[in-house]
C-alpha cells in the first residue's frame, strides 16, 4: 500500500562498544505511517538500534537514512519524537514545568505550547496531574508523561523505547488506540518491546536477538511462515530453538 520512499532505511549497520559487538549487519526499512516494532529480549541491542536511528549514537559501519536524510544530522532531531527507556524527567519539577521546558526546546511558541500541552496530557490521561511534581508520580504515570513529551511537537516520526512498561492494561490499550490514530494521521512509529503479545499490534515487526535481525515482516506473515500459533513461538523458531 506504500510505494513512497521508506521513512527509515537502515543498511548493514554494525555497532560495537569496545570489543563487544552489539549490532551486527542489520538492515531494515520502515514505511511511512506504520507502526514498526522491534521485538527482542533485553540486551539484544534494541535500545542501541533506536539510538542509532536518532543519531545520538553513530554506527561503526553501515548507513542510516531517516526521512531522506543521512543520520546523524542535528536538524533531523526536530522531526523525531523520542522517548528513552529511562524516564528522563526532572523529578523536582511539576509535569507542566517539564512539558514547557521540552516544548521550548522544540521551539513551540506560547499559545501553541499551551494548546499542545493540554492535548498530549489528554492523550496520556494525566490532565488532572498537570501541576503535580513528578516525584509524586507513579512509575506508570512517569512513563505516560515521557510519552506525552515525545508527542509535544507533533513529529512525523516517533521513536519509543519500551513505551508501555509499567502501564496498566486499560491504559495501555488506550495508548495503543492513540498510536494507531497517529498512524492514520501519517505519523510513523518505531517502538521497542520485549512483550510478545504487544508485538502483534504492530504493523510490522523486526525480531532481534544478540544483535542480529532474525526476521522482518508483518506479524501475520511471521506466524504463517513459521507455522506458529504465537509470536513467541515464531521468535523461538527464528532464534534457532525449534519446539
Amino acid at each position, binding site marked *: 500500500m506504500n510505494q513512497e520512499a521508506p521513512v527509515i532505511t537502515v543498511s548493514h549497520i554494525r555497532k560495537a562498544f569496545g570489543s563487544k559487538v552489539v549490532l551486527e549487519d542489520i538492515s531494515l526499512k520502515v514505511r511511512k505511517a506504520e507502526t514498526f516494532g522491534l521485538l527482542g529480549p533485553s540486551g539484544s541491542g534494541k535500545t542501541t538500534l533506536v539510538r542509532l536511528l536518532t543519531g545520538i549514537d553513530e554506527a561503526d559501519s553501515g548507513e542510516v537514512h531517516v526521512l531522506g536524510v543521512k543520520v546523524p544530522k542535528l536538524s533531523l532531531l526536530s522531526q523525531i519524537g523520542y522517548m528513552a527507556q*529511562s524516564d528522563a524527567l526532572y523529578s523536582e519539577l511539576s509535569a507542566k514545568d517539564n512539558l514547557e521546558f521540552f516544548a521550548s526546546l522544540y521551539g513551540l511558541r506560547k499559545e501553541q505550547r499551551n494548546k499542545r500541552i493540554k492535548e498530549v496530557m489528554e492523550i496520556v490521561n494525566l490532565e488532572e496531574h498537570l501541576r503535580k511534581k513528578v516525584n509524586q508520580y507513579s512509575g506508570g504515570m512517569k512513563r505516560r508523561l515521557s510519552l506525552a513529551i515525545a508527542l509535544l511537537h507533533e513529529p512525523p516520526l516517533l521513536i519509543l523505547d519500551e513505551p508501555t512498561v509499567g502501564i496498566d492494561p486499560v491504559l495501555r490499550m488506550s495508548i495503543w488506540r492513540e498510536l494507531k490514530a497517529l498512524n492514520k494521521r501519517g505519523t510513523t512509529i518505531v517502538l521497542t518491546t520485549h512483550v510478545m503479545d504487544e508485538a502483534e499490534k504492530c504493523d510490522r515487526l523486526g525480531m532481534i536477538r544478540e544483535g542480529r535481525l532474525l526476521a522482518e515482516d508483518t506479524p501475520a506473515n511471521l506466524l504463517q511462515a513459521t507455522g506458529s500459533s504465537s509470536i513467541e513461538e515464531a521468535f523461538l523458531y527464528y532464534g534457532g530453538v525449534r519446539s
Partner: protein
Amino acid sequence: MRIGALTLRILRQFIHDKRTMALMFVAPLLVLSLMSLVFGGETYKPNIGLTGQAAVLSKALTKHDAQIVKYSAEEEGTLALKNGEIDALISISGGTPKVILEGSNPTANRAVMQALEQAARDQQISGQAQAQARVSIQPQVSYLYGSADMKTIDRFGPIMIGVFVFFFVFLIAGVSFLRERTTGTLERLLATPLKRWEIVIGYVCGFGIFTVFQALLISWFSIQVLGIMMAGSFGYVMLITLLLSMTALTLGTLLSAYAGNELQMIQFIPLVIVPQIFLCGLFPLDTLPLWLQRVGYATPLYYGAEAMTNIMIRGKGWNAVATDVYLLITFSLVFMVLNVLALRKHRKM
C-alpha cells in the same frame, strides 16, 4: 552470617570502584603532603628595601635571612613597595630609622620586624664601643596597607570568600550536571535539536543568575556582618566573586563528565579544591618548591585570591585587578570549550 554477606558485598563494591579505593588511600596522602609542604616550609624570608643611610643596616639584616634591595631614591623604593616587590622599606631620616611595611600579609610583617629586631640587637652588642650608634634604635613603623591591628581574618577573609564561593559553586554545579546524566535527562536533551554548546551556555546562564545573588550575599555578609577589612570598592569585590563562581561552575560541569555518581564528584574536592586553597596565596608561596609555585599559578583561585586581596586590603582599583579579571574569564571560556568537547562523548553532532 548476614553481616558477613554485607561486609563482603561492600568489599566487592569497593574493589569494583577502583577510584573510590584509590581516593581513600591516595587523597589523604596528597593533602597531608601538601600541608607539610605549606606549613613545614622554610621560614619566610622578607624582602627589605633600603634607601639612603639605611644601607648601613644591609649587612646585619642579611645575616638574619632578609633579602636586601637597595634603592638610591626613596621614590623608587616606594614604588617597589606598592608593586609588592618588597615587604618593607627602611630609610633613616634625622637619625631615626623609618620602616614602612607593605602590610597586607601579617606573616611578612612579622618576618620583617623580627629581622629588624635581631639586627638591632646585634648592633647593640657590637655597638658597645660606639655608644651613639644605639641611641635611636627604636624605629618608627608605618603601614602602606593595612595596620598593626590587622587581624589574621582580615588577611584570610578576602581569600576565603573566594575559596568558599569556588567550593560550593563547583560542587553544586558539578553534581547537578552529573544528575542530568545519571537520570537520563542529558540523553533526552541530546535527542532534541539542542546543540552541545547551548547546553553548556544554558548552564552558565542558569547558574549565573543564581551566582550573582550568591556573590552579592557573600560579599555583603563578609564585609558588613563579619567586618572583614575592606579598603576598596564593593563593585570590584562583586565582580571578582562572580567571575570566580563562573570559573567554578564551568570547571565543575566539565569535571562532572568524569564522575560516575555524586560520590565521585565529591572525590574531586581533595583533588581540585584543597590544593587550590593551599596554593592560592593564603600562605606565602615564596617558601614553596618552585614546581609547586608553578602549580599555584595554573589555578583560577590564585588569581581570584590575588585580586580580592588587592581590592579589599590594598584598596586598589581596576588597573591592579584587570589581569586577574581577564585570566578568570579565560579560565571560564577554556573550561566551557572543553565541556562542549567532552559532551561529544554523548553525542557527536
